[in-house]
């Protein structure tokens, strides 16, 4: 019963947050000087044409009215029509979503792997120069944002040592047999590993750029957490049973050290997803972020709204998932 109440409360706060996001973005972009419709028409357009098109997109009504109309549509699943693409916003946005999701997840996996290895190595070799080196590398990776790492990677592996692709999601000339837009996932399901390799070689650089700052955070936090855990009595007791250092770190300390790291990683993951906006632009990756920038440049109001709302939904979903995961993994909470 108590669980149900907290879940409902959570959903209620989430709804308020999303509403707040919707309101803010809606009003912010309508403060625009200049009529976006005017941008779409040829120079010789008359006042009438502008008026007609404005009416078509509902831009002639007052702002609160427009919001209510739009909100009403949203609740029925209609996010409006894109001004530039002349297609339903929802379809466009959901079409690009898989690309960004795959990129984000790949980045997360890389970050966890890199950060985990850094933390475990630093713990295993604590007190040595190697640990010092890991700390320095971590500090640097932490201070530099994904945007710069992206540029560095483009220079290193796109120009200097051209191993990976630095543009696009997949080689354009390839024939893609996919039914969904989850290219990476589907290529594995269909056992088309040639396609998989091509996609990965396009995704790896942007994913790595996104991953580096998060990997540094994970590395630092986990190492700190491990260090503290290693001092605890149950770890020492385990040593007296005859277990070596590796077992003690991996099987006794790690499962306990992970929990505190989890919540922060969850929040940082949402930042990572936000970072896809500029990274996708940098690597010309056809995802949601890239579409967002285009939409802003073209003043495509409905599309902008749709994308911002979707990002907000993703963020809140991730936060929810992290809290759930934490509750699941912490034996104290699970059996409460």
């Amino acid at each position, binding site marked *: 019963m108590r669980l149900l109440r907290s879940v409902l409360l959570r959903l209620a706060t989430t709804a*308020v947050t999303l509403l707040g*996001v919707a309101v803010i973005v809606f009003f912010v972009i309508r403060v625009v000087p200049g009529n976006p419709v005017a941008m779409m028409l040829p120079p010789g357009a008359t006042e009438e044409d502008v008026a007609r098109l404005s009416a078509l997109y509902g831009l002639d009504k007052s702002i609160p009215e427009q919001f209510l109309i739009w909100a009403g549509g949203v609740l029925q699943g209609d996010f409006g029509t894109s001004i530039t693409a002349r297609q339903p916003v929802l379809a466009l946005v959901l079409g690009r979503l898989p690309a960004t999701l795959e990129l984000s997840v790949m980045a997360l996996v890389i970050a966890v792997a890199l950060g985990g290895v850094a933390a475990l190595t630093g713990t295993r070799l604590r007190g040595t120069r190697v640990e010092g080196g890991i700390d320095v590398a971590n500090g640097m990776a932490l*201070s530099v944002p994904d*945007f710069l790492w992206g*540029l560095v990677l483009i220079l290193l592996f796109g120009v200097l040592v051209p191993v990976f692709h630095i543009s696009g999601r997949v080689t354009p000339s390839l024939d893609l047999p996919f039914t969904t837009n989850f290219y990476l996932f589907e290529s594995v399901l269909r056992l088309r590993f040639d396609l998989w390799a091509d996609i990965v070689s396009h995704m790896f650089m942007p994913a790595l750029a996104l991953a580096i700052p998060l990997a540094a955070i994970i590395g630092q936090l986990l190492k700190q957490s491990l260090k503290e855990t290693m001092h605890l009595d149950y770890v020492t007791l385990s040593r007296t049973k005859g277990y070596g250092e590796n077992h003690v770190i991996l099987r006794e300390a790690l499962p306990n050290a992970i929990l505190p790291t989890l919540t922060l990683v969850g929040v940082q993951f949402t930042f990572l997803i*936000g970072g896809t*906006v500029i990274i996708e632009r940098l690597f010309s990756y056809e995802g949601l972020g890239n579409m967002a920038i285009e939409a802003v440049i073209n003043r495509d109001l409905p599309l902008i709204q749709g994308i911002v709302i979707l*990002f907000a939904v993703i963020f809140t979903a991730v936060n929810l998932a992290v809290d759930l995961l934490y509750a699941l993994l912490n034996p104290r909470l699970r059996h409460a």
Partner: protein
Amino acid sequence: MLDGRAMVRRRAGWRLWLSAGWLGVLVLAALLAPWIAPKDPLAQDLFLGRLPPFWVAGAEPGYYLGTDSLGRDVLSRILYGARLALIVAVVAGTVTCLLGATLGLMAGFLRGWADVVISRFIDIWMAFPPVLFSILLIAVIGPGLGSIILAIVVIDWTRFARVVRAEAMAQGAMDYVASARVAGRGRIGTMLREILPNVLPTVVVLLTLEMGIAVIVEAILSFVNLSISTDDPTWGGMIAEGRTSIHQAWWVLVFPLITLFLTVLAFSQLGEGLKDRYDPVLR
């Protein structure tokens, strides 16, 4: 045990000096740009386009770091670009800090309605993808230095607010605050005189971090061509240009990138160095 602490102090030393040093050089470069820049940063000369830096064959004397596609001197543009970067860093960083810290202090210490409203605001704000939001803002209010600063403040005030709120709540629960209240200090008075000094070290470290972030946001905005409205050189703009001609003229991308990289690194290491040096717990 003892080694670790001595080591931290020593490390804090060189980190602080190196980062402060680089930033000092940058400030000098920005201030003295009109005098030390070898060429006019805006002067175009298509015959001198895409010249390599001085140590590569085909370079032209005087253009030490080469030229871009329009024949503009890279070094001069970097020096002038430092002006914008530093102004943005200091102004945007400070304003964000003031706004965020104030709201955080109010929320954390006064609690009640202030906390509820501000916290809700923070949650909503953090649901926005920051880069997208800033791009959106600039697109809406138009380019320009003021817009950039506003955009940075608007998207990043939550960073200060959350941290200061947490600190204020923690401090507010402490005994010295209770004694101040018993002694008759009003709430605002207590907030300012007792809590603020204890929150200050954290805020200062965040401030240096924020400056680095401000530089990056500006660079990203220039990259997508939504920064200032004039032709004044920006590091981000140079990077955007360099990205397109990366195979033919790598130097157009590399040098502003290195400068930006070092600057962001310097700001954050400055913060870390300050934290190590002045963190009362570590001492």
